[in-house]
Structure formats: C-alpha cells, structure tokens
C-alpha cells in the first residue's frame, strides 16, 4: 500500500540518514521560513531566533519542532498565552523538551494558544490569533491553534508539540486538516507543562500526516519520575504500527455524537470514512454513551476548579509581570491580576472558585467528579465490545473570526462536546481529516481504550488511504 500523503518528516529523516542535509544552514533556514509563516498566519508567540546566530551547535539540530507556549523551554520565553507571564523565561526544560533535544530535535518557536488553554478557537490569546492557512478569515481552532497552523502551513519538515485539556489537539487538527494525537493520560510527562487542569492535561503531537504525529508521540512519551501521574509503560515506536493489520477491528459509533447538533456534512464525512474502512476488514456497530450530555458541565466544573487553584500562583512575585509596590499584599496582587489576566481567565477563576467554595462544593465540584466516574464507566463498558470509538472531531467546520466573536460563553463551551468526554476519561484519541465541507477540512476522531495509541495510529493510517 502506498500512502496518499508523503511525509516531509520521513523524507527528511531519510536524507539525514544519507547525510544529504547541510546542517550548517538547516536550522537558520527553518527559522527564516518560520518568520515567513509568522508574516502570513501569525502562529508563533516567540520564534527561537537565537538558533540563527553564529555560535549555536548546529550539528545536533536535525529535526524542527514547534512547541505550544505552555510548555517550559529553558532560555526561551514561555508565556502560556498570557500577559501575566510576558517576561517569563523558564530556568528548566519540560521533560518532553529534553526528549526532543535527545532525539536531535530543536525548537523553532513557541506557538500561539488561548491564554492558559482557555478556549476552543485560539482567539483568547494575549498576543494575537493564528489564521487558518486554508482560509485566513477563519480560526485555526484551539487551544493549540498555533501548533496546528504551523503543522498545516509549514513547507519544511516539522512536528508540532501540542497539548489538550478538553480537546485542544483534536479541535485545531480538525479545523486545519492536520492529524492530532492525544495520548493516554500520563503517557507523556507533564513536568514542565504550565497547568490548566492537571487531572486532564495531556501533551501530544500534531503533524501534516499520521506518520509525523506518531513520530512526535514516540519521541515525547515515556515514564518520568518527575510527574507523579506518569504512566509506567515502556516507550513505543508508534510509526512502526503504521500499516499494521486492522482486519478484525470493531469500530463503535456512538449515537450521542451524531445528533442534530452536528453539521450534516461532517457526520456524512465521518460515516463515509467508517464505511471506507470496511475495505480493510473493519466492522462497525452502534454503541451508546448515555452520560455524554453531562460531560460539558462536568468538564467545565472540574477544569475551572483546578484552573482557579493553578492560576492562584500568578501574583507578581518571583516571576512574570510585576507591578508598582503600592498598598498591601492583597491590593498589590489584586491590581496586578486584574491588569494582566484576560477576560476568559478571569471568568474561569471566578467560576472555578465558586464551584469549590464550601456550600457549593458538594453540588458542583464533587458532583462533577461523580459524573466523570460515570462517563469513564460507560467508556469501559463500550470498550468491552469495540476496539475503537469513532466520532466527528468537531460539530462544525472552522468558523470565521467574526462568527466566533458572536458566540456566548455557553455556546462557546458547547463546541467541545465531541472532545470533552474522552478528555474527562483520559483516553487516547487521534483526529484525522475525513474530507471537506464548504472548502474547509472536516475531521474524524477515534477514541481508543487506555494505552491503545498503537491501534489509533493503525486505523488513522488506514484513513489516509481511504
């Protein structure tokens, strides 16, 4: 079988193996190309221009990576999309950055994201919004919008390191026609990831094709004692699973994900793709995940509760923005946080604090945890019958910037309904292009059982050949 999509990364690795790449000017040239991308679509918050300088050790810089800006990079500014961290240069690398460097990778730049990951469209960023390379009047999706933008538009070999809490890899991958892989919770170390909601935060990868995303995940996964929630599982080369047999795979199609609230063409593309997989010997059946309708509420209550504690540390001491030392401590941090947090961050701090206050904690935070347990139970039951579950990646195609502006917060949150349940459960997912609608890409999302990223890679690889 010949894949329809040629991987620039794979070709580059072959050239590297044949010593056919001039490493003396490879990295600086990539930086120049990144700058050109920035001109057109503004996917970066920071471009790692130091790489273009004379005295960097270029022979170790073989494969370009872009890194979402909530992942700490030693010596490279890391803002998490927030004004409050504008001057912050971390003193340490995230574990996944270590792994990238050890694998011969280098950081091209830090990509645009919604502030602390708070958004579905990558429009809640203090530093601008990335434009969709397919139609620049449209958003890239979020919160890993910059990551997907670079993955879609780069004309150089590149892997985007992205991160998801409630769907922040799947959404931008679907909107930009790229492949986004979100691994099992704990598969990739969170050490060095600036927290949004720690019980759901996952680092993953976005690439132009399944190979690129799978290679990215292979590089950054692995057990890490610095993250207490890290999964103690051996490292796997997921690219080796591309093209492996999926003959007896049963795909579950959950009715709750194919309702009237999803664009007709997106549903049709997904179902066509599932039928297309029949030629690989795959069968499918309907499954039911009845608690799906509570997932959005549960997700936002838990995510905001956790986020409101995570954001408490940003108070103008030790790092980040500082303010004039006026008044007492409370006055100081209140004015500083008021000035430098964006609107959505403030909204989530207030809602999250409310949900965990005594008197409301039982009704909101603790109840949401119960719903979460129920959703996990339903997934487990479904995986007793099927190998993977297939859903549309997003209920809509990438909206225009002006359309996003009109959404109320509740309408906005509801956009995450395809992605939130698997994020609550910590299940691995992959989003691959399923076709187009009105000239824009649509995506299909496969949800796998715990630690079954290999199956996801195999089935997504098959989709590329349908």
């Amino acid at each position: 079988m010949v894949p329809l999509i040629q991987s620039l990364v794979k070709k580059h690795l072959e050239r590297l193996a044949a010593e056919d790449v001039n490493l003396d000017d490879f990295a600086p040239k990539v930086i120049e190309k990144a700058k050109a991308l920035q001109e057109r679509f503004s996917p970066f918050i920071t471009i790692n221009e130091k790489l273009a300088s004379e005295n960097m050790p270029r022979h170790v810089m073989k494969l370009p990576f872009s890194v979402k800006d909530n992942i700490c990079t030693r010596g490279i500014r890391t803002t998490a999309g927030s004004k409050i961290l504008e001057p912050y240069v971390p003193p340490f690398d995230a574990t996944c950055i270590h792994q990238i460097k050890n694998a011969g990778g280098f950081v091209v730049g830090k990509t645009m994201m919604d502030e602390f990951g708070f958004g579905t469209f990558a429009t809640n960023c203090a530093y601008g919004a990335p434009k969709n390379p397919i139609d620049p009047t449209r958003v890239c999706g979020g919160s890993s919008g910059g990551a997907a933008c670079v993955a879609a538009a780069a004309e150089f070999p590149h892997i985007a390191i992205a991160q998801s809490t409630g769907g922040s890899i799947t959404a931008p991958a679907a909107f930009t026609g790229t492949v986004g892989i979100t691994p099992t919770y704990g598969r990739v170390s969170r050490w060095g990831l600036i927290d949004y909601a720690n019980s759901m935060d996952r680092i993953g990868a976005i690439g132009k094709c399944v190979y690129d995303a799978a290679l990215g995940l292979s590089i950054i996964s692995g057990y890490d004692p610095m993250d207490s929630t890290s999964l103690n599982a051996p490292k796997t080369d997921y690219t080796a699973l591309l093209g492996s047999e999926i003959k007896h795979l049963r795909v579950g199609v959950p009715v709750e994900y194919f309702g009237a609230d999803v664009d007709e063409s997106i549903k049709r593309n997904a179902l066509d793709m599932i039928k297309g997989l029949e030629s690989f010997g795959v069968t499918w059946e309907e499954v039911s995940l009845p608690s799906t309708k509570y997932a959005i509420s549960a997700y936002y209550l838990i995510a905001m509760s956790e986020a409101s504690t995570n954001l408490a540390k940003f108070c103008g001491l030790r790092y980040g923005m500082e303010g004039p030392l006026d008044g007492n401590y409370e006055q100081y941090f209140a004015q500083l946080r008021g000035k430098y947090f964006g609107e959505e961050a403030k909204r989530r701090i207030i809602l999250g604090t409310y949900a965990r206050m005594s008197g409301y904690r039982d009704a909101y935070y603790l109840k949401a945890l119960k719903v979460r347990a129920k959703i996990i139970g339903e997934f487990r039951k479904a995986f007793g019958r099927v190998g993977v579950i297939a859903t549309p990646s997003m209920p809509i195609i990438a909206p225009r910037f002006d359309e996003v502006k009109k959404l109320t917060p509740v309408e906005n949150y509801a956009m995450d309904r395809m992605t939130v349940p698997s994020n609550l459960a910590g299940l691995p997912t992959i989003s691959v292009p399923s076709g187009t609608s009105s000239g824009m890409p649509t995506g299909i999302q496969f949800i796998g059982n715990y630690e079954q990223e290999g199956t996801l890679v195999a089935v997504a690889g098959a989709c590329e050949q349908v």
Partner: protein
Amino acid sequence: MAGVMIGIEVHCQLNTESKLFCSNSNDMRNKKPNESVCPICLGYPGSKPVINKHAIELGMRIGLALDCKIADSMFFSRKTYFYPDMSKSYQITQYEVPLATEGYLTVGDTKIRIRRVHIEEDPAKLMHVGGDITNAEYVLIDYNRSGVALAEIVTEPDFTTPKQVHQFLDNLLSILEHLGVYDSSKEATLRCDANISLDGGERVEVKNITGFENVEKALNFEIIRQNGMKRMEVKVERETRHFDSDSNTTKSLRKKEYEEDYGYIFDPDLPVIKISKEWVSSIKKNMPELPDQRVKRFVKQYALDEYTASVLIYADKNLADFYEECCRNYNKPQTVANWMMNYLLKSLNWRSERIKNSKVRVGTFVELLTLIENGTITERYAKELIKEYVDTGISPKELMKKSSSGKIDLDAVVKKVLEENKKAVDEYRSGKQEALKFLLGRVLVATNKQADPKLINEALLKQLGASIAQ
C-alpha cells in the same frame, strides 16, 4: 477554672532528608535565606510535586505512638489562600481523610483525645520588618522553609487549664524526639495554634505561637481577657488572634466574617497512595522505644527513682541518650544521674542550651566524674568547674591545669605560706597542733578556698616533715 475548653494544633517539622515534594534539603543549619530552594518549592509554573514517602512513614509513627487509627489510603488536597508565605497560593495538605485519626495521649490523669494527624507542606518563613504581623512596614520571605514536611497534630478541646497544655506539649515533644520524627538540633521547629472558649462561648483561635511557655502565657492571657469581657457583659466573638511575645498579650487578626473559605479540591498532581496493612505493621515493628517505656526501663536498669528517670527522659531526649552513654562509660548510674540533674542541667539551662547543641561531651563529662571519684578534685571544686566546662567544653583536666587551685600549684602555695609564716611553723614544730590548723587556713585562703583541705593537709605535713629533716 470551670468551663474552660482548650484544643490545640501542633505543627511539627519532620526529620526527613529532603522536603515533602522536592529534593531540597530540610536541614536549616547554616543556610542563607532562599538557598535551599528549587522550582517545585518556589511554585514555578510547570513544576510538579513528587511525594517523599519517608514523610508518610514518619507521620504513621506519630499516629501509632498516639494510638490512632491509620487510614488505608492517603491523598492530598489543595487549600487555596492568598498569602505571601505560600509560593503556589495553595498549600498541599490533607483535608477529607487524614493519615491518622482517633488517638489519645494521657497527661497526668487526663486523657487528651487526638482528633487527627495529617501531613502537609510548610509555608515559607516571613520576616516582618519594622513591626509585627499587624503593622510591619514590609515583609521579607525566606523560601528555605517552603515545602518542608510537616505533621499537623490536632487534639479535641479536652484541656481545661493552660498548664495542662504545657505538660501535654512537653510529653508530645519527647515522644516526637524518641520517634526520631523531630530533631530540634537541625533547627526544626514545633509551632502551636490554640483555640479556647469559656463557658460554651465563641471559640477564639490564637495562631502561630512558638515556645511552650508562650502557649501557656497566651492561654492565660485569653482566660483573663475573656473573663474580663464577660464581667463587662461584652460578647466574646469568634476570631483569630496573634500572640505578641514582647507584651505577652494577644492581638486580633481577623473576625469570623473574614474567615477564609479555602475551596479545597483534590490535588490532581498527586495520585492516591495505598497504605497496606503490611506497610503499617512494618512501621509498627520498627517503632523506636517510647518515653513511657524508657522511664520504666531506666527505673529497672539503672535503679533510678521514677521522678529522676522522667526528668531525664521528658526534659530532652538527647539528655536521656547522653545519660545512657555516660553509664556505658562510667558504671555508677546514680552518680551520673545526680551530677546531671543537680549541676549539668542547671548550667545548660542557665545558658538556655540543649545538650545536643552544647559543648558537653560524654568523654569529658565522665572524666570529670572520675576526677571526683579519685579525689583529684573536691566536689566543691567540681561544682565550680562544671560551669566553666559547660561554657567552654574544655576537658576538666585541662581546666585544672589552667586553674590556680590545681594540684600542681598546691605545693608551691604551701611552700610560700610556710615561708611567710615562720612563727607558726616554729610553733608547730614545738608541738602546737593548732598551728597546723592555722597554716591550713592560710593555704585555703591563698587558693581562694578552691583546694581540698585533705590535700592541703597532706602537702603541709610533707613539707613540714621535709623542713624538719633539714
């Protein structure tokens, strides 16, 4: 004092190598401010806590020593509050299910119930410059303490007098030291919050009192203050107060309506830790000897009375260790106890020093006792010498050499006295025994009454005999 109800919370810095969630050292000796810190205890974005299992084991020891039930799993919560001592603006602590519950400790005849023992991280240390917590000009922060492992021990409100609280704390301290969970010589601290109510009135909490004397003082002040309010028919309000050790009074920090809501959530960075029966029983098996058991053993092994044994053991665990080490090197337990209780302790207390941080060593102390036993020095001289010994740590033999009343100098003093008192010498030689007494008195005066009369007598007779022979 009818109607007084007091409960306390004790925060004990645990004797672990490293902090609760990072690898920075816990040992605060000779540390510059903000030297023992890392991204985790400074709360840097992207850092994550990793539990120090040893702290859990030390917490289990405390629970077991206080007859508590140990939970079958443990997890941590985030207690959110904005205060500059908390690097993440939340404290990682235990909320719903503490490590240990429902224990007790007996003080005198009273059983004080222990509500809970849990593990949490210590906040940073604040230095209030130009005032106290209520009126400082500004505040300096030392994050060395940030993230140090703490055990919080909470009692039920079972105390009826401040004195009882003081006794409880003395007993608890000795238990913690015997368990090896607390080591004051590493500058670890024990801090206490106390809550007190009178006649079923509102509860007043006095926070962060350092020193057991101060706990008693703060509570005594509160009883007087609250009784005074009652006499003037002013309602006691529920509030948090701060103890000012300069004035021995308490000051209001905040009223009840300002009490914070900590908005506890489960800490999602730290997974649940199973506490198996096997784990608990292995801790139980390796429990060190507790103070009560040790008192009994001292009575039996060293034939001490219970009072003496209790003082040695409850005053300071290291004192009891020192005692036993001395007994191994000098087989007269009664003499050792006597000299420790009556003289060594006094000198240490006078310097407000604990034995472990003092210059006193087993070898030199035993040397002193041996000098007394040999009659090389008098008891009276030894009592003088011990002060200098505790001050300087110089061995008693060395001190004697330096001293004018040492044995080596005695012959010279006697010689001089005999030369200066020719008349008395002649009288002695003519058979007047009183003359010898007179000469002895002169020598004693010349040595500032430091020399042993017996030794002077010997020296006198020797030199007088020698002069006869001339």
